[in-house]
């Protein structure tokens, strides 16, 4: 009776359901890639020349040379650490007023818009570009790096602080206000305890980011280990460069683990 074939086959559902969008993305992607490889200007001869140099660089990791530039490396790492610490502290201190201003439930409209604009600008520009200008203004050295990282910290921390304040529990804030507290008392007893645990965690996270960034501000003259690394690359001292890179990896890992440990402990 049933003449229709009972064999039914199942096929996995595609990730993007609309076939038009799916094939559009495929065709568009292929077209884009063709265009890119057509216009990209790569000097393959130079790339081929680099292969032996690359091998030399890789072989210099076994073993890296920690000793011949030991004092330079040590000074550079220490300088990066000072920059990290003071820029995190100053950046967070400065971001508190900006963050308060950028919280919608706390500040009047003009202050809110102004603070949001400050945050947006300091967040969009990469730290390196800020460092470039800081070096022009303040001269070479760790001070420029400190300024750049502080500005970056303001953008990052201020935004998260503002969002955290906007999400806070209003009943506690009202209760404190009802006792007749002044504005500062209100901030201190109603707002601050609510945002504090998360903010300490984010501060640790930013310390971690700032250390990573402090390793690169030196490339544009902002002091720290980046400057040492740049020098060793410029002199083609690959074994010292390998040592510096290993030190950076090691410290970044250490900072990351300790900062995530502190974050867990606080929360």
């Amino acid at each position: 009776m049933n003449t229709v074939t009972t064999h039914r086959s199942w096929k996995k559902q595609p990730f993007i359901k609309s076939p038009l969008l799916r094939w559009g993305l495929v065709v568009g992607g292929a077209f884009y890639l063709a265009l890119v490889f057509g216009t990209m200007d790569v000097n393959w001869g130079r790339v081929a020349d680099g292969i032996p140099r690359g091998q030399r660089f890789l072989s210099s990791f076994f073993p890296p040379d920690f000793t011949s530039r030991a004092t330079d490396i040590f000074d550079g790492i220490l300088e990066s650490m000072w920059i990290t610490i003071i820029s995190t502290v100053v950046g967070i201190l400065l971001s508190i007023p900006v963050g308060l201003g950028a919280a919608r439930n706390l500040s009047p409209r003009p202050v809110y818009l102004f603070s949001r604009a400050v945050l947006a600008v300091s967040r969009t520009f990469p730290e390196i570009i800020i460092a470039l200008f800081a070096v022009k203004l303040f001269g070479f050295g760790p001070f420029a790096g400190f300024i750049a990282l502080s500005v970056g910290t303001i953008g990052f921390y201020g935004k998260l602080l503002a969002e955290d304040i906007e999400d806070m529990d209003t009943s506690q804030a009202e209760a404190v206000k009802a006792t007749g507290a002044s504005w500062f008392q209100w901030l201190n007893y109603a707002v601050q305890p609510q945002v504090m645990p998360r903010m300490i965690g984010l501060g640790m996270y930013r310390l971690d980011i700032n250390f990573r960034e402090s390793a690169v501000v030196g490339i544009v003259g902002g002091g720290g280990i980046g400057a040492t690394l740049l020098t060793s690359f410029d002199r083609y001292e690959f074994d010292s460069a390998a040592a510096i890179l290993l030190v950076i990896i090691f410290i970044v890992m250490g900072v990351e683990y300790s900062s995530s440990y502190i974050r867990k402990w606080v929360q």
Partner: protein
Amino acid sequence: MPVTETAGTRLWKRRDRKAQLTVWAIQLGCLMVFSYCWSLVSEKTIWEFVYDAPTQAGDMASRMVPPAWDYMDKLWLAVWDTINIATLGTLMAVVLAFPIAFLAARNTTPSKVFIRPIALFIIVSSRSINSLLWALMLVTIIGPGVLAGVLAIGFRSIGFCAKLLYEAIEEIDVSQVEAVTATGATGPQILHYGIVPQILPAFAGISVFRWDINIRESTVLGLVGAGGIGLQLSASINNVAWTQVSLILLVVLGTVIVSEWVSAKVRHAII
């Protein structure tokens, strides 16, 4: 709640004596570390330059307006390069990160003792080195140009993508995998029908998120010679052509904002 009673009036304080002393001790410790670091940095700073900075900044700002709009003709190519560096770098990273994530995830790795630590080491070293440092290395090795930028972005992003992806793989729903296994599927089939569909949304989200970050990072790679708009920026700064600099900054701002918008839209559509 520490409440003290003196002469009939009850006084509330936020912390008891011990907690308050601990807080003060922590604050004092932080202050000491900070002032020590500050003194070290201050030694290496030429304060005359710093005092002079506000006038310098004003001067710089006044020379930046109006932006040299006609310089835009030369910038389009740089913007195109910047976007390509970010896109190709992200593409390379996600292609390489996909297998590495499977090797690093506890539930899919072939060997917890040998392969997982290697995969984790690749992830950690890729993540610890900033893309600018990768670019610096690659420019020294393969010479300046867009390729160095693409590779730098790619190497830097492998770790980021693989880390987020392997965390997503470790959090998958095992019942689906068991169901596929029960049909008698082979290993690759389990992967294809049981695991991959579960992590595809996360995978797409991570890729777009990283692409957005990479646009931002590829704007500065040119400072070490790895192509993109950073090349024009450092050239204009060296030539003290401030009107060009301000235009480049505006272009960077625009590119970053547009990429952020695109990424937010796409992620919103996926999730």
